[in-house]
């Protein structure tokens, strides 16, 4: 039980919630209002949904020893495409506002997802087919992609005036945020794919040793291609969610630094950046930790600027705790203390 890799991220999340319990009055209170559930926890989960999605995609990429730093740009692209195609106008008919979209919303969403998947195809092509280093291959889209989104919108923020679209990011289903259901749905699909098919095993094999995996008959290139496509698709959904939540597409700021948060969430969840081992549940917990941390910092009245410092210290701490060298150092220093503590613990 103590060996369970999820223990550490769970403990971190529990510690955070414990701090919240003492520091923020009414943190765990949930209220039922207008058929919706309200409360800090719901808020955290709702805001974490885009991050959970991107982190899920990123987990698979990192599991194959890759990295995708273009997810922020993909979020901007998919949000922009959706917002531009839906657009929407509010017309007053006899004093009643009516909302009309430019093209049917389903098509707009399909186009946005298509654009996101196309980004993934591009990344996959560069990494799997051409054999570029993942960080550089995705750097190209990270730099160019945001420029493309800005070009599409002419650098302006595209506002959406079409109510049904807002449901994705801020709607409620059975009293819970709809974005939560999307996140759960994607998680379930990925988890099923990883557990019930050999895909998870193949991804691990590629991450541990790509050459050996190829020699063992795994179609490495196709697998890596798929992983980048999936990651971009996840980012595309996150982009829809974000743009629907803020009721507009902001090519300059949507998903800015999201790739870093996603990588952070994956690392916090115990997935090694060296590839091979991965944990989907861990990444979800990691994303929740980040969002809870942000929420805690904001609601404790600490200036939001401290957020980045705290985040960076958490990353340093988590990375160090994952390093065997550091643990060796730690156990050398603390083994004496730990022994005396266990002796003390036995006495009563």
């Amino acid at each position, binding site marked *: 039980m103590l060996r369970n890799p999820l223990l550490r991220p769970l403990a971190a999340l529990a510690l955070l919630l414990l701090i919240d319990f003492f520091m923020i009055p009414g943190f765990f209170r949930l209220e039922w209002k207008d058929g919706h559930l309200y409360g800090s926890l719901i808020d955290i989960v709702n805001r974490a949904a885009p991050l959970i999605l991107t982190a899920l995609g990123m987990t698979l990429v990192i599991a194959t020893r890759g*990295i995708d730093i273009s997810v922020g740009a993909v979020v901007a692209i998919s949000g922009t495409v959706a917002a531009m195609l839906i657009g929407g106008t509010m017309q007053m008919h006899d004093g009643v506002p009516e909302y009309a979209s430019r093209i049917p919303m389903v098509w707009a969403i399909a186009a946005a997802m298509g654009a996101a998947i196309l980004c993934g195809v591009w990344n996959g092509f*560069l990494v799997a087919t*051409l*054999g*570029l*280093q993942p*960080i*550089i*291959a995705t*750097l*190209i*889209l*990270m*730099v*160019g*992609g*945001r*420029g*493309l989104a*800005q*070009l599409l919108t*002419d*650098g302006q923020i595209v506002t959406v005036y079409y109510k049904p679209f807002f449901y994705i990011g801020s709607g409620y289903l059975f009293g819970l945020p709809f974005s939560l259901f999307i996140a759960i749905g994607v998680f379930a699909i990925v988890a099923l794919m990883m557990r019930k098919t050999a895909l998870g095993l193949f991804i691990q094999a590629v991450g541990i040793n790509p050459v050996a995996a190829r020699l063992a008959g795994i179609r490495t290139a196709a697998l890596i291609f798929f992983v980048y496509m999936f990651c971009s698709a996840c980012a595309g959904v996150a982009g829809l969610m974000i743009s629907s939540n803020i009721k507009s597409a902001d090519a300059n700021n949507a998903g800015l630094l999201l790739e*870093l948060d996603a*990588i*952070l969430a994956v*690392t916090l969840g115990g997935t090694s*950046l*060296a590839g091979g081992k991965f944990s989907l549940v861990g990444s979800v917990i990691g994303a929740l930790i980040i969002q809870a941390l942000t929420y805690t910092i904001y609601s404790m009245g600490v*200036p939001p*600027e*401290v*957020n*980045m*410092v*705290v*985040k*960076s*210290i958490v*990353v*340093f701490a988590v*990375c*160090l705790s994952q*390093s*065997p*060298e*550091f643990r060796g150092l730690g156990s050398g220093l603390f083994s004496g203390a730990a022994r005396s503590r266990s002796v003390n613990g036995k006495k009563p």
Partner: protein
Amino acid sequence: MKLLRQSLSSPYFTSLATLALLIVMFVLGSFAYTGFFSLQVVLNLLIDNAFLLVIAIGMTFVILSGGIDLSVGSVLALTTMISAYLLQSWHWPPLLVIACVLLIGSMFGALMGALIHFFKLQAFIVTLAGMFLARGLCYLISINSITIDQPLYVTLSQARIGIFGAFVSPSVVIAMLMLALAIYIAHYTRFGRAVYAIGGNEQSALLMGLAVGRTKVMVYAFSGFCAALAGVLFSFYMLSGYGLHAQGTELDAIAAVVIGGTLLTGGYGYVAGTLTGVLILGLIQTLIAFDGTLSSWWTKIVIGVLLFVFCMAQRLMSLGAAGSGSATPAATAA
């Protein structure tokens, strides 16, 4: 065909290609826009990108050693912030401030290097956390922009050094001296050779008896120093300290290094190539500014396309090198 393969596998190939591209872009610009063909336009490239050049020099060493440093943009911002704070609130003498921030930058880099080397952490994630940390520390000092009105800084920001009827800023001179020093370090010192060797193959470098640990820590310290120096130049340029300064500069620096012909896997490339990389990024911006009808986001798209093209060239080159069975790139380059 043989000639093509030979030129492709030559260690100078991408650097030369970049230089050729630079010249072609400049010639095209000269024909297309009036007033483009002048020495001042070229010198303005240097004036506007002196800080980027200094950062990219540090990044070149990191990438040559097989690592990456994402914290440089934030360290630059932190430097401008600390400088502004020490000058405006504590009224420290400017030279002491500069010495102080350069030391802070180097220490910051050295600490990250130590984490990377001693605890075998990934350079990517450590410098990513360093990026967050430095940016966050900026906001701890102040969330607003602090204007610098210290006389020496103002003098340096307005000084013009004449060359053949045109002029450059003192920052350009500092950046050029830094470039000369970096070329010397990379190609004529033991440290430089160790950097190439580690980038080529860390295991062999270790077996060769090179001081791998010390060199790696020093590479990140050097990059931190360069970022801090770039911050000093940037504060001459902007006369302010601000936490939002130079966002995304780390990616511009990486792009400049790649376009300059340095292989991202390490061990292969030239510091001088980085100058051409920086000039190309600057020239794209200048061309777009001269055109006037293109929006500034075209810059990003063009940089993305160039990155792609140069990565492809690198890929072809490494295939060419493997095909002709030449000596390892690291050996030829060093």
